[in-house]
């Protein structure tokens, strides 16, 4: 009697286990099919480690959409692969999570004001191309009487943990024999909250970030950024180690953005530029010849999608930090094209 009862459910168990194993295998196939490009295509979107808390670089617009200079670089990659700049998932992370996040290989691109350093290059992942030249500075209250970073002996500084700024700060004060009290916060908002409340005399970070925050204060004139730049901060999108094709793909998309600005291809004129008589432009837009698209696993005309989606480098910059930008105005200076005396330079697309 009892054995009779047992038989039916036992069969059911076996059947489900078989199905489950099959389903699981099916899933595994998808996940381990090989390159990251295949994984991304199968997944249907690009996962970006970014931020939502810094005007200009990564923030939410009025409708709650992820926008910003860094985010647009990610959107460019999504547009290159899917033709759709919205096929992204932005994972907001704190500064001190950046290392392990990209090492984990769970995100496809890390684009969150990451400074390129040799240790990080060795440890974290592959650095693609410098997209923003920055340097560390100090913000103080205008009425504090400080005119130079060398006046700051004996002050208190607020800084974000796990950043290069944290390390530079220690170096700078050691180098110059100055004493300093530091308060190290996990998140950017707390740094400036504490600075605002008077917990710290100075707030220190990349100058672009200081400019962003200063513009957000009720009275930007109450705060000033000291002239010294104490470090080089080349901000660069990072991809996980171990997949050369993916590394090359992201690099090439960045180069397209820069080359497009060089050649004057914009969001508005990209469609007509396809029939331009300039060979280099026609090649970039996939109308003629080849510059490695097939090896990268991209469509010949992916550059059209990219530029249509986010514009060229200059357009992305101006969207957030140009004269009428969404966030604040920051002169391009080092981030001008090399043609105009800046440092932004990309290899040719050939």
């Amino acid at each position: 009697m009892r054995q009779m009862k047992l038989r039916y459910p036992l069969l059911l168990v076996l059947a489900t286990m078989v199905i489950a194993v099959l389903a699981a295998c099916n899933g595994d196939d998808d996940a381990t099919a090989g390159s990251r490009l295949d994984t991304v295509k199968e997944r249907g979107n690009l996962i970006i480690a970014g931020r939502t808390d810094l005007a200009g670089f990564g923030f939410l617009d009025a409708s709650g959409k992820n926008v910003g200079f860094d985010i647009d670089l990610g959107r460019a990659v999504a547009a290159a692969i899917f033709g759709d700049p919205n096929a992204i998932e932005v994972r907001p992370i704190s500064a001190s999570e950046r290392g392990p996040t990209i090492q984990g290989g769970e995100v496809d691109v890390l684009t969150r004001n990451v400074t390129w350093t040799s240790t990080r290059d060795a440890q974290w992942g592959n650095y693609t191309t410098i997209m923003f030249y920055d340097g560390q500075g100090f913000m103080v209250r205008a009425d504090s009487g400080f005119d130079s970073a060398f006046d700051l002996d004996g002050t208190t500084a607020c800084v974000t943990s796990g950043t290069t700024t944290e390390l530079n700060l220690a170096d700078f004060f050691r180098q110059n024999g100055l004493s300093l009290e530091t308060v190290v916060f996990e998140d950017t908002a707390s740094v400036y909250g504490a600075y605002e409340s008077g917990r710290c005399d100075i707030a220190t970070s990349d100058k672009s970030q200081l400019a962003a925050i200063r513009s957000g204060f009720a009275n930007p004139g109450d705060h000033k950024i000291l002239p010294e730049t104490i470090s080089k901060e080349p901000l660069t999108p990072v991809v996980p180690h171990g997949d050369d094709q993916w590394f090359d793909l992201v690099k090439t998309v960045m180069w397209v953005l820069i080359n497009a600005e060089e050649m004057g291809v914009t969001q508005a004129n990209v469609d007509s530029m396809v029939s331009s008589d300039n060979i280099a432009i026609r090649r970039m837009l996939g109308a003629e010849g080849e510059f490695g698209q097939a090896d990268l696993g991209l469509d010949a005309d992916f550059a059209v999608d990219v530029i249509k989606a986010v514009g060229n480098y200059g357009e992305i910059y101006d969207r957030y930090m140009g004269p009428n930008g969404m966030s604040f105005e920051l002169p391009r200076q080092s981030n001008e094209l090399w043609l105009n005396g800046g440092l932004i330079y990309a290899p040719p697309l050939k």
Partner: protein
Amino acid sequence: MVGTPEVLPPSTSVGIVGWLKANLLSSPVNVALTVVVGTLTAIAAVAMARWLVSADWSPIHESLKLFLVGQYPSEELWRIGAVVVGATALMGVSWAVWGGVMRTFARIVAAAGLIVALTPIEPAGFDLAVRLWYLGSAASVALGFAVGRAASLGPKWVIRAWALAFFLGMALIWGFDERSLGSSLRMLFGAGATLTVVLAGAGWVGRFPLAVVLRWLAWGWAVVFVVTIVMAWGLGQTDLAPRVNTSRWGGLLLTFVLAIVGIVASFPIGVLLALGRRSRLPVLKGLSVAFIELVRGVPLVTLLFMTVVIVPLFLPQGTSFDLVLRAVFAITLFSSAYMAENIRGGLAAVPLGQIEGAKALGLGGFQTMLFIVLPQALRAVIPAIVGQFISLFKDTSLVVIVGLLDILGIGKSLFLGNVRWFGAQAEVYLFVAAVFWVFTFAMAYASRKVEESLGVGSR
């Protein structure tokens, strides 16, 4: 306000004077204590009242939607409304069936819905539709009560309805797209296969009558399976309820999802771990003890950090799973270890005679455990279990540290872009504290009532 004795006229009724003498003025020391403490309380109360009146509540007023549901898309909010109305309707039914503490809660919820719907202030985005949803939740309590009364449902059915509502609610909040059929099925199979293997293993080891377990499993599974397929396939074709990525869930919604899923998942795991720890099989026991002690020995933040940041290092390249799910995973791990220890206390309290009696009546090991030991054990530790649920609910706030925007995270993020609100930090955090307090206090109250009605602790 408690009146200090000086301001009370002595000619009031003897009862009050007597009460004062007994409770406030019984000895010179007590008189002094009353005067000092009373004065201090009065000063503090006045200061607090003054602050409350002058406080700047605009951050809360203007961001109420964020506090409630985070970045959940506005045009999809009807789904949250539907889930809430469904839950309140079930509360009405539960009131009709059980009465007791359910009656209190159902009435409070209905009253709260009514008050919010009719309140004259208008926070940002609080339009007529939102008001109607609140009104609807109040009405659905009444409707549910009426239905429960008329249909005279058994408690068994109400429990089943709650369980089904849990799955349906989660599915509706999450939504469907054309890809969801495949992923739903895969998740279902994955979860089901794990459950089957665990139960089958447990059945072998503990000599459970497999048939009973599997019959439940088969039924439950069939229902969930059919519902999932119908919803995923049916709704995936339409734009009725598109997938809302968990990265957009936030506020009180996220807090609730984390807490409810955490509670639902950690309770059975805790029971299994407690049984494992008491098992005579050395391996099972060793694994249970190791898990429980390791997890209890470290803070929850480190576990959250582990599942969010460290675990991906241990997974194949390119694997990625949901951030909210990972947070739930850490919370469940942590809570189930504590739950196991609470339940173990209850198991130890069941007299050996009960087990011997059951054996003498011819019950098997599984039946003894399920029908004799566990009910008594769990009843004995209801306060501890609810205490653990309360802890879990409070602990959900730690997800802020790994970047999720629960109600506390929303409160914190308000200051990101809004320098003008820097001065209102006290208001925001007090508001968040008050919200948490209301729910934890309600849970504690319910626990006390249930305890009383079961006669636990009256020995």
